[in-house]
């Protein structure tokens, strides 16, 4: 027993040592964060932002950091920007995606920025801000398949006889139903509570395809390059779904107006694209090289991307 315990301890210590090493892909991200927070004032109180940090590159954890600083990603840059524009101190409140909505509703959080898409029901129950554009994360909605089927499917009809999975109450669910609902030979009754479970179903062969946002797909494939690939199919997306929005408590139009003004400013300054790139590099979906950043995280070239 003693031996076992000491073996486990030794293994744990060895792991801690490895975990402390490694390169830092956060340079570009930190540059933008510094730029945003420079000269920020906190005169107008605290802005509490609810978000679900399990969704790289939009919001995820940097395991090497502690506290609020460990929560990073595109939406965190946006949250910092909003807080600065409003002259407020930013507090991040991490919780599950469902809890984010309850937090805004109950007033525990002022706003939720967590990769929300616009839907009719959300518009009925929350104040919805103007949209913001997170790279190709939402604009491109795709289907991923097993590696052996890479790029074999270009039209909806090619999915005949296949089982397509998606995350429940997501934009992808809506898209799958719209696109394949009329086709009797496609099985679309494969709902999963989270995208990770759907991906496992794909790996184990329980389903043949999974509908995901392009940005998610990049992250999934980056972590399973030998198992999973893009199918070659892309959904026809109504522009209303292409971008993300933030949720604010119903009736809080004062905050809504201020946030919309700040969003307009960020859009005009062209921040969205570079924030998204920095978040992609940070979450190891793309390399700094691919997106044209130098080793100090400064953008050097315009890329086609």
């Amino acid at each position, binding site marked *: 027993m003693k031996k076992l315990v000491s073996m486990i301890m030794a293994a*744990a210590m060895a*792991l*801690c040592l490895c975990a402390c090493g490694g390169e830092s892909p956060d340079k570009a991200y930190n540059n933008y964060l510094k730029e945003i927070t420079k000269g920020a004032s906190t005169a107008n109180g605290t802005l509490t932002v609810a978000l679900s940090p*399990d969704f790289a590159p939009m919001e995820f954890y940097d*395991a090497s950091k502690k506290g609020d600083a460990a929560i990073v990603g595109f939406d965190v840059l946006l949250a910092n920007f909003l807080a600065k524009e409003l002259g407020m101190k930013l507090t991040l409140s991490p919780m*599950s995606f469902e809890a984010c909505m309850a937090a805004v509703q109950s007033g*525990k959080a002022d706003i939720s920025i967590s990769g929300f898409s616009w839907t009719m029901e959300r518009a009925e129950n929350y104040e919805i801000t103007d949209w913001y554009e997170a790279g190709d994360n939402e604009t491109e909605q795709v289907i991923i398949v097993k590696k052996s089927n890479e790029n074999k499917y270009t039209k909806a009809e090619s999915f005949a006889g296949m089982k397509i999975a998606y995350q429940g109450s997501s934009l992808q669910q809506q898209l799958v139903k719209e696109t394949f609902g009329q086709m009797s030979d496609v099985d679309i009754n494969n709902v999963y509570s989270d995208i990770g479970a759907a*991906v496992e179903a794909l790996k184990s062969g329980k389903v043949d395809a999974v509908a995901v946002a392009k940005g*998610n797909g990049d992250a999934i494939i980056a972590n399973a390059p030998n198992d999973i690939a893009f199918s070659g199919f892309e959904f026809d997306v109504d522009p209303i779904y292409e971008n993300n929005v933030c949720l604010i408590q119903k009736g809080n139009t004062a905050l809504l107006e201020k946030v919309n003004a700040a969003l307009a400013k960020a859009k005009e300054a062209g921040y969205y694209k570079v924030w998204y790139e920095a978040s992609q590099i940070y979450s190891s979906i793309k390399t700094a090289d691919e997106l044209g950043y130098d080793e100090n995280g400064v953008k050097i070239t315009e890329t086609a991307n």
Partner: protein
Amino acid sequence: METFISNIIRIMSRYGHVFLLEGVAYTLLLSLIAVAGGSVLGALFAFGKRGKIPPLRILINALVEIVRGTPLLLQLYAGVFILPRLIPALNELPDIVSVSVVLIINSAAYVSEVIRSGIQAVDIGQTEAARSLGLSERTTMWNVVLPQAVKNILPALGNEFITVIKETSLASTFYVGDLMTSYLKVRGNTFLTLECLTIVGILYFILTFTLSKLLAAAERRMKHA
């Protein structure tokens, strides 16, 4: 299978500290708070239920029934979103405080039932004998019934402790930092669900198995006493 194992090794080398340092520490902390607070409050509940103040008895009974009759996840939502409305000071504190309060109350409800059944399991003849020998009601309780009840209570209490360790996983809905939060964090980065679940599964098992062995040892000593 090979990729599965190599994925686990890759995850552990990159995120090992998230599971081992943060996750295990917070799960142990939350369980300790819930168990310690729950035992004290549960004992108070148990005596309040047997007590002579009817309104208090009714209140405790109602609370225990509500807690035992609703899912813990729902209670956590109530604790995090409704409790701060009643006690605004809670808004200044991190969510882990509200979560701990809910876990303590939840654990207390079950512990109070464990204690009640433990006391009831002591033969009524013991009380009758003590009372007819002229011992007061209080002395009978403390010196005759309770020492025998503890032997009944401890094994069931140990079960409750192990249940609490596993139930703290629901607190991950609010990212308090426990093992299941570690799972959510790492899965969010890697999209490797089964690998991350396997890691936390092993860690939960190590925690509960160690505890059940310790409790078994404690029980053996009690038998000799």
